[in-house]
């Protein structure tokens, strides 16, 4: 595309974020649920909790069990042998969260309470 091959374009825009040392609280029921989900992969896999654009309030929580990315931009929190990773870019948004698990048919599953969120969506998956 010739239009984008010319001069005058900036370098990729970089949004400076405050990096804080993350502390999170994980309830016993969430620890049990994580152990079930991860089976015997504690050594190789981690739980990544992140914040992405979207949702009614501006950010969506996301949780992924994935192979350890071994990336120094993540902060690692060990909970009963399970590694939880939070990326530095999300540290100020997710610092202080409580990870819980509710074993109910309606509205059950992992839930995040975020005391620093200014607003939260009714479904609990979005915050801002």
């Amino acid at each position, binding site marked *: *595309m*010739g*239009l*984008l*091959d*010319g*001069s*005058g*374009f*900036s*370098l*990729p*825009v*970089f*949004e400076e974020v405050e990096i804080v040392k993350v502390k999170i609280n994980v309830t016993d029921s969430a620890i049990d649920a994580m152990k079930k989900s991860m089976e015997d992969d504690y050594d190789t896999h981690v739980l*990544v909790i*992140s*914040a*992405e*654009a*979207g*949702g*009614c*309030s*501006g*950010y*969506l929580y*996301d949780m992924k069990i994935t192979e350890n*990315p071994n990336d120094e*931009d*993540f902060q690692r929190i060990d909970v009963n042998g399970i590694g939880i990773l939070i*990326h530095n*870019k*999300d540290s100020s948004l997710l610092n202080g969260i409580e990870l819980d698990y509710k074993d109910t048919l309606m509205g059950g599953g992992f839930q995040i309470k975020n005391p620093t969120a200014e*607003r939260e*969506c*009714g479904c609990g*998956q*979005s915050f*801002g």
Partner: protein
Amino acid sequence: MHLTKFLYPTGNYIISNDAKSILSGPGILEHLDKIITTKIIGCENNEIHDSIICNSNGRILDQLKIYILDNEAIIINNSINGSEIRSQLVKGIPWNKKINVIDGDDAIISYRVVGTNITKILDFIRIDIKELRGNLWKEYGNMIISMTSGTGYEILEMLVPIEEKNSMEHIMKECNILKSTIENWDIMRIELGIVDYLDINNSIPFDVKLNHLVKLNKGCYPGQEIHARLESRGKINNTLVRLRANSNHNKNKFRIIDGGKIKIKSSYKFNEMVISLGIIPKKYENMTSIETVENIKFLVEKLD
């Protein structure tokens, strides 16, 4: 209103003061889809997608025109908001996605051509007008051309590399299309009912005739909860109209004698008249005129 009195016989062009941002990398449509009010997933290369971006209170931050390329998108919005929109785009990029946002304000010039015979320029560069219908863009050399249509008008939009400004202006001259001013463009867009940043900024989309850019069945986006609540409870109380007043007023708020307010968003003066786009209570939309406590009578013209 005969717009031709403002136009050179063939047409006029302006250099629009738009912000231009380039989003690149795999998954850009998925990323955008979470932020904007319309469904962009599924749109294809060469399409143009109109949308809006709102804050979590459901109020408009800006209107976007998105040109979709393979793994890139060019996003056009108002220049006042260029940095703010780029910041919104960067903030929530997932940790495992390589998406870049680039500022193209100093690299691309945005031309807008309006007039009675804009096909002349298309003939000159040998593009059939049919190729631009249906929200598609077309490449000519290093530029991108598209067309915006509404009731009674067609406008050509051209994105041109800054290096080719002189050759673009040579093409305009060859086609007898003259450079116009932003003020003249404002007159034309108010008469044609084309909304600008001034008309929509910080408004609820339903209040400024942008209902078609709110898709409540696409999933969450910032402001969606508010939009869904307003829509389901029938709380869409205001609308945007064109107003004509035989008075040289310069206020932007008026109280209607029968209750409610007029908020003037943009206007121009012509022959002792003030012609504006303004927000009024929806119940007055079909009236021919409304009178205000300030003793000004506004003729009301419903927008399409």
